[in-house]
């Protein structure tokens, strides 16, 4: 046993370094948790039918177990809140959280600040599946929603599976090859999608709107489909947060620090891909969230993945709930595509953060 082993002592006595970020990050997680709940309640209040904020809160609270509030509101109010607005708000939060954590994971795995959840062919695979779904002469509502999300989900996963098998070299998975294979296959799917769009006749509207992303007509059945993928995937990624930190060194150093790099890549890619595929399938391709939210979190709270990942989940949820709120109210009754809102509101804020720090955030 080396002689420099030391006995446990209080940290402050042994390590006279302040850790300014650690406590601040824990407070940030708690603060964002509260913010998420408040934003959800607020977003549920706003809409074409005016419902007072307090009534909304009481309707929401009455749904909790062990809370007994006598209904003093008309049943239409309850339907609007619980069946129309709440599923939409919850789905927006879920998708925002999913895209943010998947983006952070891809950026960490590829050690590339430009990585987003769609880098290795998820989006184009989903889009191809959705386009085929639009063109099918029949539909199927076995799970409470149409066949399009199911085909989009299958397309996303198949696309990544093909990219993965193309990029594999023996027992290893070189990350650069994976990105290149993903970009190339994505371009290939893209050309097929373009062909399908111009030959789709009157269905062209549906496909293009799907590609731009929207939370319109969200239902609880969609939430229940997406939720398990996001929860399980995010939990797996969070468990590997420390390994993701060490992956920021490089693969060789990570191995020498005891990380099974190939296994880690496989697990994290699978988890992040499942999360993204589930999120994209129902609401279409929403850009910007997956790349900007993790970077914004990095700029404010630092690069440690143990804080970056949970903070990204919460920030992504809050951001997309607010973006969707603007999308459906700004030009009501017309809906603005959510991708337009995420970029218009997100980009200036991100550029402000970038200018304020003026130093390398990532590498």
């Amino acid at each position, binding site marked *: 046993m080396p002689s420099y*082993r030391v006995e446990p002592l*209080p940290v402050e006595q042994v390590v006279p370094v302040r850790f300014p970020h650690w406590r601040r990050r824990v407070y940030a997680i708690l603060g964002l948790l509260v913010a998420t709940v408040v934003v959800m309640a607020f977003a549920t209040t706003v809409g074409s039918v005016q419902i007072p904020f307090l009534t909304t809160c009481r309707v929401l609270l009455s749904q909790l177990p062990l809370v007994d509030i006598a209904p003093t509101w008309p049943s239409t109010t309850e339907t609007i809140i619980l069946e129309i607005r709440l599923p939409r708000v919850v789905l927006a939060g879920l998708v925002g959280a999913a895209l943010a954590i998947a983006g952070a994971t891809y950026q960490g795995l590829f050690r590339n600040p430009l990585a987003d959840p769609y880098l290795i062919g998820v989006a184009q695979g989903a889009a191809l599946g959705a386009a085929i779904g639009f063109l099918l002469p029949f539909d199927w509502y076995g799970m409470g929603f149409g066949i399009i999300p199911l085909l989009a989900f299958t397309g996303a996963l198949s696309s990544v599976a093909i990219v993965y098998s193309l990029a594999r070299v023996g027992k290893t998975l070189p990350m650069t090859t994976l990105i290149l294979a993903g970009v190339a296959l994505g371009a290939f799917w893209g050309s097929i999608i373009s062909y399908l769009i111009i030959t789709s006749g009157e269905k062209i509207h549906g496909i293009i709107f799907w590609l731009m992303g929207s939370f319109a007509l969200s239902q609880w059945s969609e939430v229940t489909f997406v939720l398990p993928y996001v929860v399980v995937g995010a939990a797996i990624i969070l468990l590997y947060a420390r390994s993701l930190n060490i992956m920021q060194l490089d693969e060789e*150093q990570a191995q020498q620090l*005891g*990380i099974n790099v190939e296994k880690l890549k496989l697990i994290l890619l699978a988890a992040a891909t499942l999360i993204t595929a589930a999120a994209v399938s129902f609401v279409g391709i929403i850009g910007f969230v997956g790349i900007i939210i993790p970077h914004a979190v990095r700029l404010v709270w630092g690069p440690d993945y143990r804080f970056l990942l949970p903070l990204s989940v919460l920030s992504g949820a809050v951001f997309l709930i607010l973006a969707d709120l603007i999308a459906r109210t700004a030009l009501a009754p017309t809906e603005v595509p959510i991708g337009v809102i995420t970029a218009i509101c997100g980009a200036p804020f991100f550029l402000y953060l970038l200018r304020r720090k003026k130093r390398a955030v990532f*590498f």
Partner: protein
Amino acid sequence: MIKLELQSVRLGYGDNVVVRDLTFRVMPGEMVGLIGPNGSGKSTIIKALSRVISPSSGQIFLDGKDISQISRGDLARLIGVVPQMPLLPSAFTAFEIVLMGRNPHLRFFQYEGPRDMAITWQAMEMTATHSLAERRVDELSGGEIQRIVIARVLAQEPKSILLDEPTANLDIRHQVEILDLIKNLCLENNLTVLAALHDLNLAAQYCDRLILINNGQVHAQGTPGEVINSRNIKEVYEAEGCVYAHPVNGLPAVLLKAGNSKQAKPRDEIEGGVV
């Protein structure tokens, strides 16, 4: 504290065989220098000993145990590596980088506790990097990064340390500082040290034993006095080296003589014989 052993090991990348048939051992508590020309396979041997690459034939043993039977986590508790020109993510602080050395000692979802912090801090004090603890990596110089990485290896508490050109790109003061530190660790903590070194003079000054590698095979091994002589240098490096005894401790030292370049005229010719 641990014995490293290579038995007729063959290493390479794809079809390119770098090391053909290599056999040597490093005894517990020894500081051994791995010397040889560029491309002779020094870095490859370090990679094989930390299982970044696997031998295509032959075996590597740590204390008699086959390295391929040891899990990555266990291996990282036995062997720490200081890579050549380590690349570090710039947004992390020096302390966070050194703290990563505790990874093999932590369980799956365990956070670093006070003891890990204390060990990390002590590793930084030993390498004189504690004053840099809160600085970001992109604010550090090459020598400071090299010391940070050595601190990370110390925080890892391995039984053996492998170094790949630890003094590359350092000025002479830092070269001596780094090797003094490693030598002291080797002596005080009985660590087994294997260092790939370019500089024959430093290798002779610090190592108990030298292994001279040429074309992926052991050309000579033994004490610095046995290995560093003008015959070996001519055979392996194909360069003229003038070996003499160091004026202070008598260890071999190498002075180079200019080769056949046009500028390499004797001094007296250039300056008209006035020396």
